[in-house]
């Protein structure tokens, strides 16, 4: 039985795809996480108050989401409600993460697939026939890379402004945040974002066009079978701070809403022997998280340019839309939204009142929910004598694991016949996985 192994690149972490074939028939298509981190073990015995600084180290890409989820979990245990100003600064922190992540995923991870190159940083070695977009010269690619990095940097700087450290933030603390943002700093940040916004829109327009061209060239937008969708944001003016988890049926009807405390009632987790990451399903069904889930459930973004893109998206692809390459376009809508929304918040006073309330630590159990770039992230801790005795991290990439494998099977069946394996499969495997923007460090925490 031939086994095809595809190492993956332009995703966060170490993973590969393994497809087993017999007589032209696809027997299995597995997405394997091939590293193991072990944070659920590392943190046992750690003083609970140190979690917000330890857990961002799960992942340097999603660190902000883990930082905020840790603080929310401790606040749940201690029974603390942070003041409104702290919530605003935490929202900014998460918007910074969305900007940084979506710009990276769109322009650094998946743009090369549209251009038919191996990387924007190394544009000479072509990996597939040119898309004929006319943008594919090395010079043009280098310019895209520079502009993409500028947009990304605006997100990173926002994380620094709102979170202190730029990769592993430190400003969110139990009861609030350590400090506000002064008017000068806020204005400077706002200026930087306002400069990044038109660049982001221009790159996104170009990206949208190239996606359409590529869809025509390869004749598919990937696995377009309906699926359930899951997210922790409301259907208008997304706040990635996360309140309630919503599940949408494949036909677009809202099916369930539940709090992080009740996730076990709705979500089923299982491990496999072929990957260091597990898989979750919703009542036995394939589920999708990440940008497409959010955009499928969104009625309005609540900012002008993002709403234009959202309307264009719904009109072109329907609501809910199911084809997986639309995850990428949904990311662009969120990138624009996050830039606009952050500018709105930065126009308000951010150092005029208390940034934190006092609290008394106590033992117990708690949950913290955040809508991370890849979907709902839940932390769950049990604390005894001030120390962590149990920690669970419920990771968005794990929600997507079954959906990734379903889409891989679709691609494999398309490009494998009894006679031959079409070498386009290698590119297809990369495109499928990147559509979900998986994070392996998180998934194997």
């Amino acid at each position: 039985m031939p086994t095809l192994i595809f190492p993956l690149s332009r995703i966060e972490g170490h993973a590969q795809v393994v497809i087993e074939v017999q007589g032209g028939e696809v027997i299995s298509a597995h997405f394997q996480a091939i590293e193991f981190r072990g944070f659920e073990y590392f943190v046992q015995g750690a003083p609970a108050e140190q979690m917000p600084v330890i857990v961002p180290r799960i992942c340097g890409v999603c660190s902000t989401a883990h930082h905020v989820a840790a603080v929310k979990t401790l606040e749940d245990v201690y029974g603390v409600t942070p003041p409104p100003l702290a919530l605003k600064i935490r929202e900014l922190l998460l918007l910074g993460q969305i900007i940084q992540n979506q710009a990276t995923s769109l322009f650094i991870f998946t743009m090369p697939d549209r251009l038919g190159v191996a990387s924007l940083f190394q544009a000479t070695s072509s990996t597939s026939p040119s898309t004929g977009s006319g943008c594919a010269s090395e010079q043009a690619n280098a310019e895209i890379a520079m502009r993409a990095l500028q947009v990304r940097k605006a997100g990173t700087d926002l994380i620094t402004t709102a979170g202190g450290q730029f990769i592993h933030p430190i400003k969110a603390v139990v009861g609030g945040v350590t400090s506000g943002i002064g008017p000068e700093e806020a204005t400077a940040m706002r200026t930087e974002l306002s400069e990044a916004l038109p660049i982001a829109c221009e790159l996104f327009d170009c990206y949208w066009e190239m996606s359409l061209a590529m869809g025509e060239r390869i004749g598919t937008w990937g696995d377009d079978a309906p699926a359930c969708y899951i997210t922790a944001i409301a259907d208008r003016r997304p706040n990635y701070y996360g309140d309630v988890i919503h599940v949408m049926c494949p036909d677009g009807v809202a099916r369930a809403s539940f709090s992080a405390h009740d996730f076990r009632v709705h979500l089923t987790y299982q491990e496999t022997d072929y990957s260091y990451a597990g898989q979750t399903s919703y009542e036995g069904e394939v589920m999708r998280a990440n940008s497409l889930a959010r955009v499928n459930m969104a009625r309005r973004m609540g900012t002008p340019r993002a709403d234009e893109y959202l309307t264009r998206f719904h009109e072109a692809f329907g609501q809910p839309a199911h084809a997986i390459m639309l995850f990428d376009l949904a990311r662009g809508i969120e990138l624009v939204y996050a830039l606009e929304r952050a500018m709105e918040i930065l126009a308000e006073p951010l150092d005029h009142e208390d940034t934190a309330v006092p609290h008394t630590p106590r033992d117990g159990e708690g949950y913290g929910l955040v809508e991370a770039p890849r979907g709902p992230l839940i932390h769950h801790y049990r604390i005894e004598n001030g120390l962590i005795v149990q920690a669970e991290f419920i990771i968005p990439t794990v929600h997507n694991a079954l959906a990734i494998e379903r889409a891989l099977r679709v691609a494999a069946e398309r490009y494998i016949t009894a006679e031959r394996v079409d070498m386009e499969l290698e590119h297809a495997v990369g495109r499928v996985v990147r559509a979900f923007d998986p994070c392996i460090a998180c998934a194997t925490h």
Partner: protein
Amino acid sequence: MRQFAVLQLSGCAGCEVSLLNAEAWVDRYKLVYMPLVISAYDVPEVDVLLVSGGVRTDEDLYNLRRAARRARQLVAVGTCAISGGVANLGDRDEVRELFLAEAERRHLPRLLPRIRPVDAVVTVDRYLPGCPPTPELFMAVLFTPTDFKVGKTVCRECGRKKRRDMRPTHLIGFEQGEVLPDVCLINQGYLCVGSSTRGGCRALCTRPGHPCVGCRGPSDTFIDKLSSEWFTSIQRVFAAMTDIPAEEIETALRSPQLALFLFQFSDYAGTGRPPRPKEKVL
């Protein structure tokens, strides 16, 4: 144009993200291998190889040995490459058994019995500590600019004022909300180890109000010494500035949040490696 590559072992990719933030290298240095942003399956011959992450799996071991032979200069980047970093917490005896029980899976790279730093496997020419190192530090290691000046310690770069009239009697923990601006965090009762932590990060945690957890590792004064001297030095600082009992400090210094960076001392986990020479550490 000179060429460099980035090999990511078991880690969080935070170092890679920081490198992307230092975008000024893009048109001055050719990046030829970095799976996070480039589809290329093998490390070619390069001038500089940056290695991030610790050696955790047998695949890490293989990839590191193979790549190191093709690099003229090898730089260990970030806490995990230098000491194993946060993954060392999984090597505490009581946790390790649980941890390795998880590890046996079919068809997957096997976990090594312990996390190992890069220099336990190959020769390292330079070290760039930090969790992660800042973009400015990445630029400094790639280009060695002559005007690059850093403070000797985080404390020197912080700018918060020490006060004689504020002498706390107990530590108040890491997570106590609002922090007084401009006043030294030790005066406010925080366990800040910036006084003996290597400078160069521009005190980016302490300035907005979070105590230094020591991610850049020991300053030049302590780097070739035993970890016990570092503990003594922190005790001296707290004795001079506070009335906090020494036992309280001692216990807090052993907690995981700080311990994960203390592994940068060659003797901390009893591994018996020689200390890193200070001239190799940026």
